[in-house]
């Protein structure tokens, strides 16, 4: 069958839409990201991995918000926790004999998961939900920022902390990631792994229970599911991923400051995810990448007006297009498909 035949619309039949499935688009996007270093070099390749990690942060929020109906204003706190962990490990763990950066990735994920599990189970087992959960995560984010500022002998306070770039190692083999392209590929692999991991768990039975909790928590509870455990697990996974992304961000940016944990950055993540579409992982990823790229480009020109536009877009999205851009695309496709 030729290409022309396949796409031809038969008369009398409803127009056939070739449903482009999300993973196909995702693989396309990831492949495009993987090819970029061959086409570009310099600043674009340097800065893009940071935005991809913001995209991972956005996906971690989408898992919570879009799939389980829990909104967190504290994701940036976990992101910063990861970055600081990376910094501390690289500074102090040289003596252990293993690659400090690997250690940092494991510790940061464990720390994020542990904190989120503890706080999450503590709250969810008592039925704390909705707005109260938002406020608690907001407070977590403020606490993280305050600690980063206050414990300046450890974190460097307002001055921030410098972090050496990590290196890959496997027994004797060592590979420093000093060049922009090399760490770019490490992060692309991380982004791809995160995306497919999250896609897997959201489509598994686990994800179906989460959707149930989102739609009607009381009913899922009365069906016998241990809702607090599911919510805790989701929060823990989300926090662990945010922490790992933060650790990679730390080693890539080579610098971390308290504002990374702040409320403003936390809510920026919420804005990306809301505009891009809260119930699609790919949209969240792209939202994180695209919006932060645009922010960077425009903040040189009109920093204030761009933030204003973003705020207005955010309100419009929440008020009128709850699914965000992804929701609109989905509806458009469904409309055309009949």
């Amino acid at each position, binding site marked *: 069958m030729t290409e022309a035949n396949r796409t031809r619309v038969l008369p009398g039949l409803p127009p056939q839409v070739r449903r482009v499935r999300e993973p196909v688009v995702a693989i396309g996007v990831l492949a495009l990201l993987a090819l970029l270093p061959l086409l570009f070099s310099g600043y674009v390749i340097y800065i893009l991995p940071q935005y991809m990690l913001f995209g991972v942060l956005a996906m971690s929020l989408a898992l919570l918000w879009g799939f389980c109906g829990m909104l967190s204003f504290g994701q940036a706190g976990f992101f910063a926790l990861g970055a600081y962990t990376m910094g501390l490990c690289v500074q102090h763990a040289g003596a252990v004999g293993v690659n400090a950066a690997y250690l940092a990735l494991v510790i940061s994920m464990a720390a994020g998961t542990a904190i989120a599990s503890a706080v999450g189970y503590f709250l969810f087992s008592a039925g704390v939900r909705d*707005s*109260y959960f*938002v406020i*608690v995560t907001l*407070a977590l984010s*403020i*606490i993280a920022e*305050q600690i980063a500022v206050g414990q300046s002998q450890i974190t460097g306070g307002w001055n921030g902390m410098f972090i050496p770039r990590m290196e890959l190692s496997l027994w004797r083999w060592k590979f420093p990631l000093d060049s922009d392209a090399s760490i770019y590929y490490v992060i692309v692999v991380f982004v791809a792994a995160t995306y497919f991991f999250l896609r897997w768990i959201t489509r598994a039975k686990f994800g179906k229970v989460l959707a149930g909790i989102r739609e009607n928590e009381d009913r899922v509870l009365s069906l016998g599911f241990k809702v607090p455990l599911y919510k805790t697990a989701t929060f823990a996974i989300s926090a662990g991923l945010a922490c790992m992304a933060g650790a990679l961000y730390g080693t890539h940016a080579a610098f971390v400051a308290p504002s990374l944990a702040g409320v403003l950055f936390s809510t920026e993540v919420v804005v990306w995810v809301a505009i891009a579409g809260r119930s699609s992982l790919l949209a969240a990823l792209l939202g994180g990448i695209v919006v932060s790229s645009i922010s960077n480009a425009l903040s040189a020109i009109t920093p204030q007006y761009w933030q204003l536009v973003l*705020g207005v877009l955010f309100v419009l999205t929440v008020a009128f297009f*709850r699914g965000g851009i992804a929701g609109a695309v989905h509806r458009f496709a469904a409309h055309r498909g009949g």
Partner: protein
Amino acid sequence: MGHGAMLTLGAYLMWATTKMGVAFVLAALISALGVGLVGLLLEHIVIRHFYGEPLETLLLTWGFFLITTELIKIVFGTDLREVVNPLPGSFELGTVRFPVYRSLVALFAVVLIVAAALVFYKTRIGIRIRALMQNAEVASLLGLNIQLTYKFVFVTGSFMAGLAGALISPMLSVDPYIGNIFLVRSFFAVTVGGVGQLLGGTLAGSFLVGGMETVFALVSSQVVAQTIVFALAIVILRFRPQGVVTSR
């Protein structure tokens, strides 16, 4: 969530009006009315369509917060502003010195809370609000105009946040972010005290949150104090979600 921005806005309006030479009390009133007007517009244009969806309302007011903060930055700039303290100096009571202005504001705040509680518990509008909180559907069936009541509550809330911002402005330097920290504090004060416990709850909550912060700040740093208080508030939220003060 928008109340942080309301407070900031109140403080800036205060700065602008006192700068124009308006007397302090009048300026505070103008600022509060201005913020109340903003609240009215916000409620009428956006918020009233989203009652019954708390998470969306929260997001919308947060969006309002972002927009207002940016607008304030564009109009007023990001540099610190000072509002002149109208009553400098202090008086002594025994061995303790009290700054005049702070004491007066504290007194006024208590009076305001008591007045709000009186309105809430002793007047017709108060009983309407309480009916709305208990069961909006039944209240509307009994002939209560819920839209109007919600609007009244929202505008009053904005007015008070604006007033708080105006009154607090001489105590600190005004910058576009002063609302942030007060937002979380006030949220916790309300949660700790108990939602709907206007008199006892608000007073107990504010004293607990504010008082503990001051006490802990004496023995350790300000930062640690704030962290401990937030952590404690989370614990209270877990074990007494209905608040410390409960009726019945």
